[in-house]
């Protein structure tokens, strides 16, 4: 495989924790690692929920004007008002999870496991863990705690730096 010292590197700040926003960081991290890059993911704010032992990721129809679900042979947009109806967000989440399974897309659990196997470095933002009162016990094994300076140092040495 490619010489380790010449390997490119990528860092990402992961700030969101909904099901739809969980995919880009994990897909990019696992694929980059498969292509020989050294990858570091820094999880902060709502991104921290992606490190929880038991994942229960959801999507919302609120504030997602570009969301169109494939239903009845068409793409149906979701007006904000429907999210106020009880059960709609849960139904949208269930629909999304079904689509994911049906289309042979990996689950976030699977992608996260593959990222850890591929030695993707995961850092959990100490400050927001504290802010939301999460403890290391809530999180999976693997991620280390760090702060902004930890991330910045990694970023100065990375070829690719992404904010997701």
């Amino acid at each position: 495989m490619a010489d380790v010292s010449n390997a490119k590197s990528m860092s990402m700040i992961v700030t969101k924790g909904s099901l739809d926003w969980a995919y880009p960081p994990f897909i990019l991290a696992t694929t980059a690692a498969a292509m020989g890059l050294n990858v570091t993911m820094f999880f902060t704010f709502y991104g921290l929920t992606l490190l929880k032992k038991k994942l229960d990721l959801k999507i919302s129809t609120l504030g997602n004007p570009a969301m169109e679900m494939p239903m009845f042979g068409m793409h149906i947009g979701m007006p904000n008002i429907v999210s106020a109806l009880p059960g709609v967000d849960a139904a949208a989440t269930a629909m999304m999870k079904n689509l994911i399974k049906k289309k042979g897309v990996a689950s976030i659990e699977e992608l996260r496991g593959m990222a850890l196997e591929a030695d993707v470095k995961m850092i959990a933002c100490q400050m927001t863990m504290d802010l939301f009162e999460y403890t290391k016990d809530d999180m999976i094994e693997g991620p280390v705690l760090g702060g902004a300076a930890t991330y910045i140092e990694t970023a100065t040495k990375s070829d690719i730096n992404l904010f997701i």
Partner: protein
Amino acid sequence: MAEQVLDVKGLNCPLPILRAKKALKDVPTGSTLRVLATDPGAVKDFEAFCRTTGNELIESKSENNVFSFLIKRTA
């Protein structure tokens, strides 16, 4: 020696690449791995994967909606 085949038909990005990378670890250097996929994105993905990792994409073809990639492990 039987050619090693990886069947990722029905799986979507990034699984074809991730599974191929895992399978390649068990392929002796100089040997080949055939990957069967249905994800149309896999065509360009495998080209990029081979370019970046230095493995050789010997063949990339499509038959009856199944894409077939022949990859040689070079290092």
